[in-house]
């Protein structure tokens, strides 16, 4: 039986470890800087193999080299999160290289002898599905907050980087919008009828001491707010203590940007809106009635 591996290319990837088989020693493959490699040296990891990308080379350019190194151990299970492109690139190369099943949204795996039982979300997370597939398995897992304690005794072994046909030629970091560190965020969607009505939602955000954000169409298609204010898969991804979604349907694209929120509240006139399936609390009603009422109630203290 081969080894179990964890691929780490993002600081949150170590949170995938608790999704793997308990008591099975795991080898980590890290593509990133030294700090990332050292962050993977935690309890449950036997050894960390580490590729440090050359200047100007994206981590995913080393997917082939990382996959080749893992394949040499005849892997049984390789897991990563889908957070960063590089982890996905490694698992894609691996699955092709060893004929593994490649599943995403995985929350648990169970050793069932000559097969592995895999559980995870399917159909956008609206159902929990279980699969029974032969080993080896490549699993894109849902990250967990349950990160094991650091273990300084874990060996961090560098691997040589190889030449790459892919290079980053320019990199531009946007001015911080304030969303990343905000404790409270109010997001608004197409339930809002006009740009002028943004003031209504802005008033609520001010009263809450919250940052104002929006769905992709409000920034991209309508231009009502700057692009750095839209939340979603291709936009900002936030982890506030409170996220208040106003007039948002709850499209998967948007929800991916707010999954880290501690408490999500939806305000929508449609009780069947998808936002309520992702929320902890919700008010079913017209935002043009609810938002002023909420702002006034907060002002009263």
């Amino acid at each position, binding site marked *: 039986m081969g080894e179990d591996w964890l691929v780490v290319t993002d600081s949150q990837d170590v949170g995938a470890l608790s999704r793997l088989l308990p008591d099975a020693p795991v080898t980590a493959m890290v593509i990133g800087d030294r700090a990332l490699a050292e962050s993977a040296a935690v309890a449950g990891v036997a050894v960390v193999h580490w590729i440090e990308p050359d200047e100007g080379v994206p981590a995913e350019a080393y997917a082939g080299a990382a996959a080749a190194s893992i394949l040499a151990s005849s892997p049984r299970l390789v897991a990563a999160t889908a957070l960063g492109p590089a982890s996905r690139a490694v698992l894609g190369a691996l699955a092709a290289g060893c004929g593994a*099943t490649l599943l*995403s949204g995985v929350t648990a795996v169970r050793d069932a002898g000559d097969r592995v039982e895999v559980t995870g979300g399917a159909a956008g997370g609206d159902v929990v599905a*279980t699969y029974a597939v032969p080993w080896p398995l490549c699993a894109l897992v849902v990250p967990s907050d349950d990160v094991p304690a650091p273990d300084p005794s874990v060996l961090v072994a560098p691997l040589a980087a190889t030449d790459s*046909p*892919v290079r980053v030629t320019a990199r531009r970091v*946007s001015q911080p919008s304030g969303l990343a560190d905000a404790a409270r965020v109010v997001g608004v969607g197409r339930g809002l009828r006009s740009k002028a009505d943004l003031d209504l939602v802005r008033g609520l955000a001010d009263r809450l001491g919250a940052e104002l954000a929006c769905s*992709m169409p409000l920034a991209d298609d309508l231009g009502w707010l700057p692009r750095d204010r839209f939340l979603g898969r291709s936009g900002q991804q936030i982890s506030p203590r409170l996220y208040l979604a106003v007039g948002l349907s709850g499209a998967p*694209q948007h929800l991916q940007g707010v999954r880290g929120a501690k408490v999500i509240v939806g305000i929508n006139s449609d009780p069947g809106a998808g936002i309520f399936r992702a929320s902890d609390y919700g008010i079913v009603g017209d935002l043009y009635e609810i938002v002023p009422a909420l702002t006034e109630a907060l002002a009263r203290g």
Partner: protein
Amino acid sequence: MTTVVAFNVAREPAAARILADGSVIWPTRKLPPAEDDHAALSAAVVLADGGELVGVTLGQGDPVWAAARGTTRVLRISDVVVGDDDSATAAALAAAVAEVDGADLVVLGDSEHHPGLAPALAGHLGWPCVLAAAAAARVGEGVEVTRRIGGVEETISARLPVVIAIVAEGEETSPPGMKTMLTARRLPVHDLVATDLALEPVPPLEPVQTRPPSSAAARLFDGDPQQAVGELIKALRSEGVL
């Protein structure tokens, strides 16, 4: 130097019918385009730069949809359908790409629901990939890709061959009209079956068991707005987030 675009190769949850017991029923005949397909097609048209643009798809793909958006011909593996194993889907697509003479650039949507598909396609082809791309253009003998992740925008140059996975940043703004769609019906479609490509004809991976999620539904307040907001504020204070 031929550009290939893969389309209708990812299942969107919105197309699924979910029964009360958690069973999922997917469309059997035709898959609706995935969320990122239109953006992948647009990028592929730019990358083809007036040259041949070959569409590849599986049994539930709609060649007319792609032809109306710029493919010059479509190759379809008619007896393979999309399942939950992204590597199996990618293996079939890679076999289709191998049928296209001179293919050195493959573009497809970077599906949120099939995040392993594009990288596994690159793996089966033995090519590098650039994922989560927003736009791409040919520059010299290679391609230049723009991508935005969080607050960082990168420009990436890649030599060919390469797989580029595109994330849509908006909805399709100008879908083709009826006349274009009718013309697209006349464009050639080359139907193959798995055995033509030396693929093992296996059924798509589906779960052995499904159930509704156990997580509690949202606590909803409705009725009088004043009362509803009062109850919400009380709940949020008890959560410690106000």
